[in-house]
C-alpha cells in the first residue's frame, strides 16, 4: 500500500526523516520503502511556453519555444496538453530526473530539443499523471521548481503482513509510529450529529454482518472534490471520481474502514437488506462486469434487487452520479472469511475486499461513519436525515491476561515491568488491572490479530526491539538417536559421482504424452495445473531423465551419465528412488588405446558394472527380471535383488524410444526402501596371505545356451572348498564360426594362491585340471585351442 509521509503527520507528531521513518516501521514489522516524491531531481526550472508548432515529422509531437525569463529554449514535447501561455517545469540540458535520468540535448525526428517539459509523474510527484504539469499563472520564471512547489510530500510503500489489516490506513501506520516513539496518536475531530433513528437496515445474516451503520443524507451537491483531497488520493494511487465517492475513499485511507455510498433514490422499499444472494442472482458491478452470485455470497439489497456485493464492490445502478441528491452511506463490518470466499470465487480484489479479508473493527466503523458524514456536510453540503446503527451484542473487546514470567520463558530475557506496561499503553491497550505479575489487558477492537497471551508477548518484543534480545545456544537439546538416515543413499550417490555421473534435479511433474511414450501410467493427477507440464506427478524418474537426455543430446553433450534422487508417486504412494541414465562413450577417446580397440560405449554389461560398483554390499544380486517395465528392451533387462526382494531394475531402453544408435541404459533403485531395511553387516577382517600368487589365463568353449551363471557357479564351487583358486575375472567373450555353430568362448583370468606356502606349477596345473574336468563333466565345456 502506498502512503503519504505528510499525511502521517496529521496523526502523530514526529520529527523523523523519511529514511529514519522507514527504518523504524520496518523494524516494527512493516516493511517500508520510499517510492517517490520529494525533490528527486536537479536542474528543473520554471518557464513559460511562448510558441507551439506541430512537429513536421511526427503527428503527436509539438515543437515549443519556452522562456525562463532570460533565455529561449526550443523543446520538442509529446504531451497533448501543452499550450502557449502555460508556466511549466523545464528540465534543462544537464538536469537529472528521478531514476538518474539525465537530460541531454538531442535531435527528435530531426528537430533539436534543448531539454524536456516535465509531467508530475516524471518528477516523481504522482503515481501517474495526464500530460505535463501546469503551474499557476503567477509563478515567477527561472526559479528552481522545488522553490515554487512548496513542501513536497514523500511517498512510502508499505508491506503489511496478513495479520495487520489494521495498518492499512494512515492512522493505523501512525499508531505504530506512536507506539515506538511513546506518543499518543491524534485522531481527526469527530462531530456527532443529531439524527432521527429510523429503520433503514434489515440484517438477515447477523453472523456475517456484525455492525452496520446506515445514514441517509439529503440535499447533497455532487461535484469535484477539493484539490487537497484529490492530490492526496492521487498520490496514493486512488482514482478521483466525485466529492462523495472521494470522501469514502479518503476516509478509508485515513482510518482503514471501507465505506460505500449509494444513491438513496434508487433504493426501492425504503431500506437496505443485508442477505445472502439467490442462486444465479446477477449484479452489474462498478468494475463494468456483470457477476453471477450464489447462495454463499452476502449482498446489500433493496426490496427488489441486489445493490452491492457486501464488502467487495458496489453496483452500477445505485452508484453516485452528478444528479444524485440523496446519499445512503454504509459503514459496516462483514465477516472476513465470507468476503474472501466470494472475492476469490468472483476473482475480484478491491481496496475494500482487501481490507475486509484482513478484518475490520466495529469501533472504527462508527468513527469512519461520523468522519465521512462530517466531510460530506463540509464539502458537499447535505443534511443527516436519518441513521440506524446495528451493533452486534458480541462486539466486545478482547481481555487477555499476560504473565510476566511467560515473557521471559518464551523470549529468554527479562523486560522491566514498567516498560511492559508502557509498551502496552502506547499500543492503545488498556491495563484494567494488575495482579502481582499478571496484567489484565483490554485490546482495542481494531487489533483483531491479538487474541491470546502470546500475541501480546510478540507486541512487547516487537516494540521493545528484537535487537535487544540476547543470543544463546541450545547445545545438546537432543541427544536422541539419529532417527532418519541417508547413509545408504549417500554411499550410492558418492560412488556415482566418483564414476563421473552428474546429479540432476527435475520437476516432480510429468506430461501425460511423455508418459505415454514410455508406456508409463500415472496415479496422481493435478486438479489445477497451470500448464501441461504440471499435469500429473511423475511415476518414475525416467521421464525427467529422458528430458535431460534429449536436451543434452540437442546441446551436443553426448556422454550422458546422469542420476537423480527424488520422489516418485505411484499406486504404492510416494517414495524416494534413485534413477540413473547412461549412454554414449564411457569416457572421452584416449590416444593410448591401441588403434584396433574402440573407445567403450555404454552397453548392458558395462552398466551392470556400474550397478555392482554403486550397490553398498555384496548381498545385492542381479537376477532375472520377470516383469520388466515396458520401456525396457525385453532381452536386455535385469532385476536387482536384496535378501530375496526386488529392490530395483535396470536395462537397455527400447530403441524406438531413444532414437539413437547408442544404447541408453536406465537403472532405478528403491533407495528409500533399502535405507529402511538395510542391515549394516560389519565386515570381519580376513587374513591375507603373503605368498606369491600365480595367474593363469584360460579360454573355454561352451554351448551358447548355457547360462553364464552356471559356468560361474562351478568356479565358485571350486573356490568355496578352501582351495587355492582365490579370484577370477572374465576378460574376453568371443563368438565365431570357427568355434562351431551355437558356440561361445569365454576367457578367464584365474588367480591361485596358497595361504601357507609358495605354490608350485604342478599344484596350479592340477587345480586348473580339476576345474576343466568339472566344466566338461557338468556342462560339456572344453578348452579352446
Amino acid at each position, binding site marked *: 500500500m502506498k502512503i503519504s509521509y505528510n499525511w502521517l503527520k496529521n496523526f502523530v507528531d514526529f520529527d523523523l526523516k523519511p529514511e529514519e521513518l522507514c527504518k523504524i516501521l520496518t523494524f516494527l514489522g512493516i516493511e517500508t520503502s520510499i517510492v517517490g516524491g520529494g525533490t528527486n531531481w536537479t536542474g528543473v526550472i520554471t518557464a513559460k511556453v511562448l510558441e507551439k508548432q506541430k512537429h513536421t515529422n511526427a503527428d503527436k509531437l509539438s515543437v515549443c519555444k519556452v522562456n525562463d525569463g532570460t533565455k529561449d529554449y526550443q523543446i520538442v514535447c509529446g504531451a497533448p496538453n501543452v499550450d502557449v501561455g502555460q508556466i511549466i517545469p523545464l528540465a534543462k540540458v544537464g538536469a537529472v530526473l528521478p531514476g538518474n535520468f539525465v537530460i541531454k540535448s538531442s535531435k527528435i525526428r530531426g528537430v533539436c530539443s534543448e531539454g524536456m517539459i516535465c509531467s508530475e509523474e516524471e518528477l516523481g510527484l504522482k503515481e501517474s499523471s495526464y500530460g505535463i504539469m501546469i503551474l499557476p499563472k503567477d509563478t515567477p520564471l527561472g526559479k528552481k521548481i522545488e522553490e515554487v512547489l512548496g513542501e513536497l510530500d514523500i511517498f512510502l510503500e508499505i508491506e503489511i503482513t496478513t495479520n495487520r489489516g489494521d495498518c492499512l490506513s494512515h492512522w493505523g501506520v501512525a499508531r505504530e509510529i506512536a507506539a515506538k516513539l511513546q506518543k499518543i496518536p491524534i485522531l481527526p475531530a469527530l462531530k456527532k450529529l443529531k439524527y432521527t433513528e429510523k429503520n433503514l437496515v434489515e440484517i438477515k445474516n447477523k453472523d456475517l454482518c456484525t455492525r452496520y451503520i446506515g445514514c441517509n443524507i439529503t440535499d447533497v451537491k455532487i461535484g469535484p472534490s477539493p484539490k487537497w483531497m484529490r492530490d492526496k488520493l492521487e498520490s496514493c494511487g486512488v482514482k478521483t471520481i466525485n466529492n462523495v465517492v472521494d470522501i469514502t475513499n479518503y476516509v478509508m485511507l485515513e482510518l482503514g474502514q471501507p465505506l460505500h455510498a449509494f444513491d438513496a433514490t434508487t433504493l426501492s422499499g425504503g431500506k437496505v437488506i443485508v442477505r445472502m444472494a439467490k442462486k444465479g442472482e446477477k449484479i452489474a458491478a462498478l468494475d463494468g462486469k456483470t457477476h453471477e452470485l450464489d447462495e454463499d455470497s452476502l449482498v446489500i439489497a433493496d426490496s427488489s434487487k441486489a445493490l452491492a456485493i457486501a464488502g467487495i464492490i458496489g453496483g452500477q445502478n445505485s452508484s453516485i452520479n452528478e444528479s444524485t441528491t440523496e446519499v445512503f452511506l454504509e459503514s459496516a463490518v462483514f465477516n472476513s472469511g465470507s468476503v474472501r470466499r466470494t472475492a476469490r470465487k468472483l476473482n475480484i480484489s478491491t481496496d475494500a475486499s482487501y481490507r475486509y479479508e484482513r478484518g475490520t473493527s466495529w469501533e472504527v466503523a462508527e468513527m469512519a461513519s461520523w468522519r465521512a458524514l462530517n466531510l460530506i456536510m463540509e464539502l458537499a453540503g447535505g443534511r443527516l436525515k436519518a441513521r440506524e446503527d446495528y451493533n452486534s451484542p458480541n462486539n466486545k473487546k478482547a481481555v487477555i491476561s499476560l504473565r510476566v514470567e511467560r515473557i521471559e520463558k518464551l523470549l529468554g530475557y527479562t523486560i522491566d515491568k514498567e516498560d511492559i506496561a508502557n509498551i502496552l499503553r502506547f499500543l492503545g491497550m488498556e491495563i484494567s488491572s494488575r495482579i502481582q505479575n499478571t496484567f489484565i489487558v483490554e485490546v482495542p477492537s481494531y487489533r483483531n490479530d491479538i487474541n491470546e497471551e502470546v500475541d501480546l508477548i510478540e507486541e512487547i518484543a516487537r516494540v521493545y526491539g528484537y535487537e535487544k534480545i540476547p543470543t544463546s545456544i541450545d547445545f545438546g537439546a537432543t541427544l536422541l538417536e539419529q*532417527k532418519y538416515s541417508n547413509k545408504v543413499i549417500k554411499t550410492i550417490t558418492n560412488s556415482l559421482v566418483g564414476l563421473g555421473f552428474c546429479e540432476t534435479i527435475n520437476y516432480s511433474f510429468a506430461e501425460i504424452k511423455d508418459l505415454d511414450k514410455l508406456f508409463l501410467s500415472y496415479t496422481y493427477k*493435478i486438479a489445477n495445473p497451470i500448464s501441461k507440464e504440471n499435469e500429473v506427478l511423475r511415476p518414475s524418474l525416467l521421464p525427467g531423465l529422458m528430458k535431460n537426455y534429449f536436451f543434452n543430446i540437442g546441446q551436443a553433450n553426448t556422454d550422458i551419465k546422469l542420476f537423480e534422487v527424488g520422489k516418485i*508417486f505411484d499406486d504404492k504412494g510416494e517414495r524416494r528412488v534413485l534413477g540413473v541414465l547412461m549412454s554414449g562413450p564411457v*569416457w572421452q577417446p584416449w590416444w593410448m588405446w591401441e588403434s584396433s580397440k574402440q573407445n567403450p560405449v555404454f552397453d548392458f554389461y558395462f552398466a551392470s558394472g556400474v550397478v555392482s560398483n554403486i550397490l553398498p554390499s555384496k548381498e545385492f544380486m542381479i537376477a532375472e527380471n520377470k516383469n520388466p517395465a515396458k520401456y525396457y528392451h525385453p532381452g536386455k533387462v535385469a532385476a536387482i535383488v536384496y535378501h530375496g526382494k526386488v529392490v530395483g531394475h535396470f536395462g537397455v531402453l527400447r530403441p524406438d524410444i531413444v532414437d539413437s544408435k547408442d544404447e541408453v541404459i536406465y537403472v532405478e533403485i528403491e533407495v528409500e526402501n533399502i535405507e529402511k531395511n538395510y542391515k549394516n553387516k560389519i565386515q570381519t577382517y580376513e587374513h591375507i596371505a603373503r605368498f606369491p600368487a600365480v595367474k593363469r589365463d584360460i579360454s573355454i568353449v561352451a554351448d551358447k545356451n548355457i547360462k553364464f551363471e552356471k559356468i560361474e557357479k562351478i568356479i565358485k564351487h571350486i573356490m568355496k572348498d578352501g582351495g587355492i583358486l582365490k579370484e577370477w575375472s572374465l576378460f574376453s567373450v568371443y563368438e565365431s564360426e570357427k568355434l562351431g555353430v551355437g558356440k561361445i568362448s569365454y576367457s578367464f583370468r584365474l588367480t591361485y594362491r596358497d595361504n601357507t606356502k609358495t605354490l608350485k606349477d604342478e599344484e596350479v596345473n592340477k587345480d586348473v585340471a580339476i576345474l576343466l574336468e568339472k566344466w566338461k563333466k557338468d556342462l560339456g565345456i572344453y578348452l579352446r585351442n
Partner: protein
Amino acid sequence: MNNKINEMLNEALKKLQTAELIDIENIKVEYLGKKGKITEILKKLSSLAIEEKKEIGSCINMAKIQLIQAMEAKKKEITNKLLEEKMKSEKIDISQSFAFNFPKGHYHVISKTIEEMSDIFISLGFDVSCGQEIETEWYNFEALNIPKDHPARDTQDTFYLENSQNLLRTQTSAAQIHIMEEQKPPIKVIVPGRVYRNEATDSSHSAIFHQIEGLVVDEDITFAQLKGTLQLFINRLFNQEVTIRFRPSHFQFTEPSAEVDMECVFCRGKGCRICKGSGWIEVLGCGMVHPNVFKAVKYDSEKYTGYAFGLGVERFVMLKYGIDDMRVLYENDLRVLRQF
C-alpha cells in the same frame, strides 16, 4: 712380484676407464676369470715359501678387491648414465596432460548446498528428516494455524490432486506436524525438501523449489536460542562473522515471528547489485512455535516452547553463485551441472 701385481692392476684400471658395459665383463674374465691374470698368480702361490706367500697373497687380494670395486663403480656409472639418457629421451609433453579428462561427476548445486547446510545443523545436534510431499489440508495448513479462508493462503498458490482432498505441500513446515505427532519432545530436527507453488515459472519463480525447515521443541526453548542458533548457522555457512538482524514479521504458525536479514556478504553492507543497494539480504523466516500448533499435535503449550525456521535453498544458491535465472537450475544442462 709385488710390482708385477701393481702393474697388472694399473693396467686393468686403465682399461676400465674407457670401458663400456660389455668391456667390463671382458676385463673381469681377463684378470679374475678362471684363467685370468690375477688368478694365475694366485695359482702359483702354493709353490712359494710361507713368508712370501703371505706377503704376495695379501697384495693380490688387495688388488683383487680394488679391481672388483672399480669394476662395480664403473658399472654403476655406466648404467646410471644410460638410465639418465633413456629417461631424457622419454621426456613427455606435460602440457598435454589435461587433454584427457577422466570424467568427473558432480552433485547438483542444490543438493550440494542442502548438504552443506545440513552438515552445519547436524554439527549443532539436529536430526535430518525429509517428510512427505503429498499432504492434506490439515498438515499443510490447518494444523499450522492457517484456517480456511485465511488470506495467508493467498501467498501460497496450491496444487491440489484430482479426486482427493490432498495437495502438494507448499512449505516444509507441514513436516513439523508429522514429526510432533510421531514423537514427544525434545525435538531437534531439520527437514530439507521440495515444496510446490502453483505459479508460472520465470527467472525468479519456480513451481518447485527447496526449503530447509528447522524445528526445536523442549521445555525451555527461547527466542534468544533461536537467534543464537541462526547466527551460528549463517557464520558457519559463510565461514566468517556475518551481521544478521531480526525483523518482526508474521507467519501463522509462529508467534513472535521474524524475518532474518544478513549483511550483504558481497559488499559488506555497502550496497551492491546483489543486495539491490540496501546492504542487506533477506535470508529466512522464523519464530516461536504458535500455541495453536502445539494444540494441534496435543502438546502442552504451557510446558513446552519451541522455535521453527524455514529458508529457501535456491535463494542462497543463486546469491552465492551469482545465478540470475532460476530455470537454469532445473534444465540440467551438463555444461552447467559440471560447473559445481
